[in-house]
């Protein structure tokens, strides 16, 4: 289409890159044009991150060439790349939360007062320019306030403002939306469209397919370090894109086995919560979870989804209310107590709350099981090997060896190991907080199939996800949270609109400080 004849801004040709001998990119070509939003897609480990690292100077260029505006460049550092016109915004906002918004935007480049060389920051100009920059992104906030006080989405916007102020030629966004809710994503996209229309070339990396079609004109697909192809988004449909990424046809359909199993509401609940609440956490939660059921938790970020999970799994203790496990009232002040009862938890924050990064994959997988067995019943080496081999195979953990430190795995594989850890104790209830976040399409399908299989075998599953579509696909029932309260429950098989209607109450739609 029209984008085909636009001027290429950034080109990469024949990029070959290897980490200590292991090839990560093998002859990849890539072309980014002015005024387009271009998606870079691929499974975990396909080479997206490596390509971005090479383009932005994090990794030195080994073989191949990078051409920016017709001239070959060799970015030696991120600073170097920035100065030549390539700015990057990463998934995790790397700004200083303790500085003001304006200070963050101009950190290291503060405007000085003309009469005070070497000192005297011109605060007036600093704040005015920050305000003006953010206005270009349709963001109107108090730029003098601490950055940490704003939502992640706004922090993301500030990071983008900083990036485009340094250079508006090429903007690379590495999974910018993974911690944003739908309203925030819409706001981000609006800003991106504005930038695009002013001629900025935007490279967009994400795992969310719908977002790709919403904003991108072109899609470049990588697989196993090789280029699969570059396609106009209009010519590559959803299924074709997934097939290109995984290299085979993937089925989107699920047999709603979980729903069938859950019909038998006569079976006693595995876990029931009555009026459970916690100061600063959630108020009055009432739940019943039966064997063979997948209970979905929907709600915006910060709606209390995670807080409920923490209460059910003993991470926090409730101030009030009663939790019954298989009919018996329990108090769980420690995760260990929940695990002893067969309730396991897979946390959302993989790095800080999940993995123990220098321990081996095997040790990480058996950690909960061994903790449950206690000090005096150590798993025998054969038993440990058997369990870890079986679970790693079941969850398709891809690693050179299960004895290598878990920290060396890609994010998606780490996530699978954490699910394996939760399953290793053979729980009666497993609570998974955003288990599909940061995992590629094929991996998501595998995890959801696994949940259905586990439920069919009689396990009770709590599945928390920001993606309503995912919830609808597997859940027998969906509990909707809003503003730290349980606002309703929908049966499985309801429509996405019904869920969104409950999620988005009028009061919750506008986060403070956002302008339309």
């Amino acid at each position: 289409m029209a984008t085909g004849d636009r001027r290429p801004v950034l080109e990469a040709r024949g990029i070959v890159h290897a980490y200590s001998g292991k090839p990560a990119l093998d002859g990849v070509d890539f072309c980014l044009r002015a005024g387009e939003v271009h998606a870079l897609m691929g499974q975990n480990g396909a080479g997206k991150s490596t390509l971005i690292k090479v383009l932005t100077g994090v990794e030195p260029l080994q073989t191949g060439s990078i051409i920016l505006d017709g001239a070959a460049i060799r970015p030696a550092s991120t600073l170097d790349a920035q100065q030549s016109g390539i700015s990057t915004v990463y998934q995790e906002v790397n700004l200083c939360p303790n500085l003001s918004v304006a200070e963050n935007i101009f950190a290291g480049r503060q405007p000085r007062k003309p009469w005070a060389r070497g000192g005297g920051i011109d605060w007036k100009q600093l704040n005015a320019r920050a305000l003006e920059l953010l206005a270009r992104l349709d963001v109107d906030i108090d730029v003098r306030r601490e950055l940490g006080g704003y939502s992640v989405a706004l922090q993301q916007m500030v990071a983008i403002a900083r990036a485009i102020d340094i250079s508006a030629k090429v903007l690379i966004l590495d999974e910018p939306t993974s911690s944003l809710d739908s309203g925030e994503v819409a706001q981000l996209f609006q800003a991106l469209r504005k930038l695009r229309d002013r001629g900025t070339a935007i490279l967009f990396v994400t795992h969310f397919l719908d977002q790709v079609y919403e904003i991108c004109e072109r899609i470049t697909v990588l697989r196993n370090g090789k280029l699969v192809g570059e396609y106009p988004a209009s010519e590559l449909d959803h299924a074709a894109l997934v097939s290109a990424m995984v290299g085979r046809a993937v089925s989107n359909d699920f047999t709603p086995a979980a729903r069938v199993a859950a019909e038998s509401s006569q079976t006693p609940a595995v876990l029931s919560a009555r009026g459970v609440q916690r100061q600063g956490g959630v108020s009055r939660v009432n739940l019943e979870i039966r064997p063979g059921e997948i209970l979905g938790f929907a709600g915006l970020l910060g709606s209390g989804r995670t807080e409920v999970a923490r209460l059910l799994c003993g991470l926090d203790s409730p101030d009030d209310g009663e939790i019954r496990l298989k009919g018996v009232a329990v108090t769980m002040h420690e995760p260990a107590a929940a695990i002893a009862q067969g309730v396991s938890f897979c946390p959302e924050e993989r790095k800080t709350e999940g993995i123990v990064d220098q321990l081996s994959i095997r040790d990480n997988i058996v950690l909960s099981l061994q903790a449950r067995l206690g000090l005096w019943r150590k798993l025998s080496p054969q038993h440990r090997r058997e369990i870890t081999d079986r679970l790693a195979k079941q969850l398709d953990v891809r690693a050179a060896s299960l004895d290598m430190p878990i920290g060396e795995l890609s994010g998606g594989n780490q996530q699978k190991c954490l699910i394996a850890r939760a399953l290793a104790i053979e729980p009666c209830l497993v609570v998974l907080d955003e288990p599909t976040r940061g995992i590629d399409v094929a991996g998501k399908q595998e995890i959801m199939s696994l949940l259905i299989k586990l439920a069919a075998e009689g396990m009770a599953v709590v599945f928390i996800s920001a993606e309503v579509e995912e919830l609808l696909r597997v859940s027998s029932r969906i509990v909707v949270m809003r503003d730290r309260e349980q606002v309703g429950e929908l049966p499985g098989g309801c429509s996405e609109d019904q869920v969104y209607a409950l999620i988005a109450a009028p009061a919750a739609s506008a986060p403070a400080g956002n302008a339309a």
Partner: protein
Amino acid sequence: MKSLFRHSLAWPAVTLILLLGLNAVMNPGFLALAWRDGHLYGSLVDILNRAAPLALVSAGMTLVIAARGLDISVGAVVAISAAVAAVIIGPTGNLGFAIAGALGVALLCGIWNGALVVGVGMQPIIATLILMVAGRGVAQLITGGQILTVYYAPYDFIGNGYLLGLPFAALLAGAVIVLLHVLLSVTPLGLFIRAIGINPVASRIAGVRAQPITLCLYAFGGLMAGLAGLIISSNVKSADANNAGQLLELDAILAVTLGGTALTGGKFSLAGTVLGALIIQTLTSTIYSLGVPPEVNLVFKAALIFLVMLLQSPDFRATFKRLPVRPPGAEKTS
């Protein structure tokens, strides 16, 4: 050979051998062992014997550090333990009661530290600083501000006795450390400690009872300091509230570090710590046997420790290796 050098204990072992070699060169009789009156005599036996209290304290410290803690009160606990033993044994002459009392009080000291860290949530260095400072005062109170001397033959045996021809203190330390090693290998305690040291939050969520385990590690550290206190006071036949175990905590931290345990927690080696304790004791003996004048004693020790630390640093060894042989065209490094 190369893979042998990659073993984590290789460099502590090399350091110890070099130090022993240095001593053997300076003092030809250093390596000699003699059997007299049914006892084994020699400088090596002496080093083993004198290293016993440090090895015990360091073993406790290793586990505390591995679980992201630190205990700088061990020197003070040594003094408290020695004082309690001396106060009980003086008037009563009841050895069992004295040992139980000293170890019990030391255990309480450890639990106190653990409770401050785990229960109150204080930074380990601050929490144990309290007992480090206050402990000497407590020991003074117990001894009434006096240096108590203990002349009681059975008590004397702990620090000066021989069993099967070997010093009892060394055997005792060896036995405790072997028991600890067995405990760490037949139970998953080592896994739990490493997990807590690397990521305490994730460990707790995974169901590891991080708090009670950490409390027990501090308690064990206290107990080890108590045992060291018994050995030290028995060895010098007195309890000196001011000087018993003076700066022992720093030697213990040094021994733990020399042995390859990461101060940031997670990675630890009990065997490495034992080597570390032996290195420090050998260093001390070296200084005495070389006849270093007392006024430069500490400076000399510091210089030697600096050298030992350099030898232990992989980065330093790497630069050292690279210096002489730089092949042409090798300047383009990643």
